[in-house]
């Protein structure tokens, strides 16, 4: 047995030896039965490791996972119609809304700005102007929805069904947020929630349309 080469056999198996070393090792293999046998075993180990079966956990882990998912990320949930905030929270939320509305939504839409777009600024009475950016988002969603309707035949029917179910869920969340905003138009949380939900629908539409387009 030649320990020097025995220790290099894995590198040989993996094709990581330089040409000169590889030639020297192959010359050694021609005369060393022990190294040849070990080399064969190592190749079998590599093949065996690549053929390992994945095994399921003994118990279903989903209930524990589901319980830990952040409920706030669900688009269809407005957990309360009554909200109370302290002044710093309201200021922070208002700033976040303006940034999100004037910046994030415009960037997310990523399309030429039609003339109907306007600056998003808090109204003089302190209420936040959500009408402009929601109408802008509505138009973008409608455009993307048209694209989806044209391209959905490229997707599996189960895909279309899942996507439409998701649209329905998101649409319900948007409708709920708008109803709540009618009663409380200056509510920063509701404005943020509506913007976030519409952004989710835009992103989903873009993704589905990209997948459908790629199927051609």
């Amino acid at each position, binding site marked *: 047995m030649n320990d020097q080469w025995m220790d290099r056999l894995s590198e040989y198996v993996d094709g990581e030896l330089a040409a000169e070393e590889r030639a020297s090792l192959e010359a050694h293999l021609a005369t060393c039965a022990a190294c040849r046998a070990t080399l064969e075993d190592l190749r079998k180990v590599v093949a065996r490791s690549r053929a*390992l079966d994945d095994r399921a*956990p003994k118990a279903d882990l989903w209930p524990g996972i589901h319980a830990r998912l952040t409920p706030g990320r669900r688009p269809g949930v407005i957990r309360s119609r009554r909200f109370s905030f302290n002044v710093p929270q309201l200021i922070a939320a208002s700033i976040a809304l303006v940034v999100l509305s004037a910046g994030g939504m415009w960037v997310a839409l990523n399309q030429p700005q039609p003339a109907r777009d306007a600056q998003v600024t808090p109204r003089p009475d302190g209420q936040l102007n959500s009408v402009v950016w929601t109408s802008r988002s509505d138009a973008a969603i409608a455009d993307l929805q048209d694209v989806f309707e044209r391209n959905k035949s490229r997707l599996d029917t189960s895909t279309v069904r899942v996507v439409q179910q998701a649209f329905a869920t998101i649409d319900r969340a948007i409708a709920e947020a708008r109803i709540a905003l009618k009663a409380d138009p200056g509510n920063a949380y509701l404005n943020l929630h509506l913007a976030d939900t519409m952004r989710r629908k835009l992103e989903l539409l873009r993704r589905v349309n990209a997948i459908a387009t790629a199927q051609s």
Partner: protein
Amino acid sequence: MADAEAVDTALAASGDASAFERLYRTHVNRVHSLVRRMLDADEADDLTQDVFVRAWEKLHTFRGESAFGTWLHRLAVNVVLARRKTLGVERGRFQGGDDPLEHVSARRETPEISMDFEEALATLPDGARQVFVLHDVEGYRHEEIARMLGVVPGTSKSQLHHARMALRRYLDQ
């Protein structure tokens, strides 16, 4: 099907837990197997849950450049390695003094113990085990493994060779 998984990923990223559950059902066996092979079996369930919760939290960063399974698997490796750091199990494992050949062969010589390949893998010392799983089972390169584990590539190669030499005794089990 690829388009369904892609859309499920998008739906989950939009907050759809049902879509995320479908992704979980598709990938849980692979993730659980990875975690079980890299850590102790009794931690596999908890760590697998951590992986999926982390994936849910980070789904918004998934842009579809790779398959969701690839992205999830990389995330799982990161969660496992972070867990190892928390446990401190990696300390001293790469500095020698823990010969996988001796470790496994001692078990093998006990006649009443019959281990299959997976069980033998679990008896490897942590360093050799991590490298073997990452390289031979998961397909990472030595340079990547060295970065992940904080060792030099030569150490990764050495650990891999020792692990293979130990495991060859279990090929027929």
